[in-house]
């Protein structure tokens, strides 16, 4: 039991390392190996979360070297839930991807599974680590595998991946520079230890400098306005079967890391804390408006969803910018919710591509007759994005709005309202295209199967559907669990 934190990360890692070997035997052996590993991680992360709720945060020391000497994993309720989220979406993506044959599979069998599994490993590691440099290494694992998965989406994907690689490396470099500044002032790499040392003596200026670097770095990685330039092309052209994971979770974990620095390492004693929060607030307000406005003009489903992600990331950072425990809980709830919404929407896009090979919004008229389940999820996820109860999107907005109102930040409340109306414009346009536009009589690329697509495609769709509703209806429980940790940080 005491080894749960490492096992959650280790199993996908080992599975990825061995995937190529087992794929030699048969393609499916490697695939089932990684699927088993990720499922096991999922089970263990659930167990771990229960432990954390019962006994408080877990600290895991590698090699039994105590905190500042060795590397530490620290699990609290927030990242306990995030681990589950990553595992679930990762698992669904694996199931989903099994129906898609990628072109590289001829050259290297199981290569895509390896990379996808390493992406999951990186995300899990970034979530659970309590060491600043370890975070960097996990960040790079995540980035590298993401570059690869984006590049797999064809020629435009390669360009998008290259541009993302340049920007992403700048982000990693800036992060490293920030770490250098903090290390120069504290001499430690452990987050908890750093939090203690930073509060001794006057280090506010160094901290401010490092925080600006971190905001730029994580801003790029999470595609926060104005650092989002790489994101729409990358989400659009990524490999179809990997896109749900990339769009659903990859942007969230850097956001979590930013939260970690802002609230756990720095804390409210930091002299320029309010200033940083205001900066974040301005950025997120811009993101929410800009992303929504840009999304309105898109004709390609994938681009529309990508720009909508820019806006939705704004909601998350808005929660950080408000800074009260309730707002943070709202931000994290939105993170979980949005992961399922966006991943779900991309599962839908994938299912449509699987059967018809089309991305354009003009082609999808009356598709609901042929793919009712997929379109059901599409509608639910879209409504959730707009913030219609009882989907989860409404409740995260409720917490954000409530926290903003309690802090008397009326502008944030107004922007929340405006942004969700802008969301409504393009999401109802999307729904309209599916339900109202005349049938274009698309030629089928693949047969419909017994239901409407194969089970591996439908399972993720159904799970996302249930998850959006369940997260919405059980949000009070989740927020309670989140507040166990968040109640101690924040304003």
């Amino acid at each position: 039991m005491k080894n749960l934190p490492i096992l959650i990360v280790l199993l996908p890692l080992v599975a990825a390392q061995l995937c190529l070997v087992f794929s030699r035997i048969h393609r499916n052996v490697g695939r089932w190996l990684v699927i088993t590993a990720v499922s096991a991680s999922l089970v263990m992360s659930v167990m771990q979360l229960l432990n954390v709720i019962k006994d408080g945060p877990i600290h895991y020391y590698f090699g039994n070297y105590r905190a500042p000497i060795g590397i530490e994993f620290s699990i609290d309720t927030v990242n306990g839930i995030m681990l589950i989220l990553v595992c679930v979406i990762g698992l669904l993506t694996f199931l989903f991807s099994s129906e898609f044959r990628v072109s590289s599979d001829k050259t290297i069998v199981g290569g895509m599974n390896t990379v996808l599994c390493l992406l999951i490993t990186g995300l899990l590691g970034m979530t659970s680590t309590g060491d600043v440099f370890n975070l960097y290494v996990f960040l790079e694992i995540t980035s590298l595998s993401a570059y690869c998965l984006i590049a797999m989406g064809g020629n435009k994907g390669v360009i998008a991946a290259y541009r993302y690689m340049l920007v992403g490396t700048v982000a990693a470099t800036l992060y490293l520079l920030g770490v250098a500044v903090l290390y120069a002032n504290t001499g430690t790499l452990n987050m908890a230890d750093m939090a203690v040392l930073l509060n001794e003596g006057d280090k506010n200026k160094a901290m401010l400098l490092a925080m600006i670097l971190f905001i730029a770095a994580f801003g790029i990685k999470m595609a926060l306005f104005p650092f989002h330039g790489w994101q729409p092309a990358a989400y659009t052209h990524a490999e179809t079967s990997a896109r749900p994971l990339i769009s659903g979770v990859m942007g969230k974990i850097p956001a979590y890391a930013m939260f970690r620095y802002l609230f756990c390492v720095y804390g409210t004693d930091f002299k320029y804390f309010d200033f940083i929060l205001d900066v974040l607030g301005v950025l997120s307000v811009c993101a929410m408006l800009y992303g929504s406005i840009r999304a309105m003009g898109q004709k390609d489903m994938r681009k529309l969803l990508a720009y909508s992600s820019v806006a939705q990331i704004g909601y998350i950072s808005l929660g950080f910018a408000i800074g009260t425990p309730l707002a943070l809980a709202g931000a994290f709830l939105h993170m979980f919710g949005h992961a399922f919404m966006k991943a779900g929407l991309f599962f839908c896009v994938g299912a449509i591509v699987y059967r018809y090979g089309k991305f354009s919004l003009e082609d999808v008229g009356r598709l609901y007759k042929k793919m009712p389940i997929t379109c059901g999820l599409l509608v639910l996820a879209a409504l959730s994005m707009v913030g219609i109860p009882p989907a989860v999107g409404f409740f995260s907005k409720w917490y954000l709005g409530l926290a903003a109102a309690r802090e008397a930040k009326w502008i944030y409340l107004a922007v929340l309202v405006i942004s969700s109306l802008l969301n409504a414009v393009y999401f109802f346009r999307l729904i309209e295209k599916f339900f109202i536009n005349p049938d274009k009589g698309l030629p089928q690329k693949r047969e419909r199967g017994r239901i409407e697509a194969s089970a591996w495609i439908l399972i993720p769709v159904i799970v996302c559907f249930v998850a959006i509703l369940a997260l919405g209806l059980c949000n009070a429980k989740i927020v309670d669990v989140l507040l166990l940790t968040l109640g101690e940080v924040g304003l």
Partner: protein
Amino acid sequence: MELFLAEKGIYFLTLLLLGVGLAGIIVCSNYMKKLICMNIMQVAVIFFFLCLGQKAGGTIPVAMDSMINAADYINPLPHGLMLTAIVVSLGTTGVGLALLYRIKDRYGSIEEKDIIEREREKK
């Protein structure tokens, strides 16, 4: 001034390098040059980090029986970390080069304006 340079000067040299790399990524229109600038930037940060390992009067961090004081050896931690960072930057560069190969193969050029033009043509 001299004292300042001796105490802090090296930081600014590395930062200068970082700035050159960053500016190169932004202004260069050739993708290969961008990649090179990216590398320059990574190396600059590695140098920056290594500055922190310096210790006056320290020697290389291989323990000798004659010296047991911590003050006698330079700080090994930045070196260890930067080994990792170097390998990571190596991996990134490798992937970047592979991507460039693909771009060149597909578009016949790695100049940004050519690629944008080609993309526009296809539409």
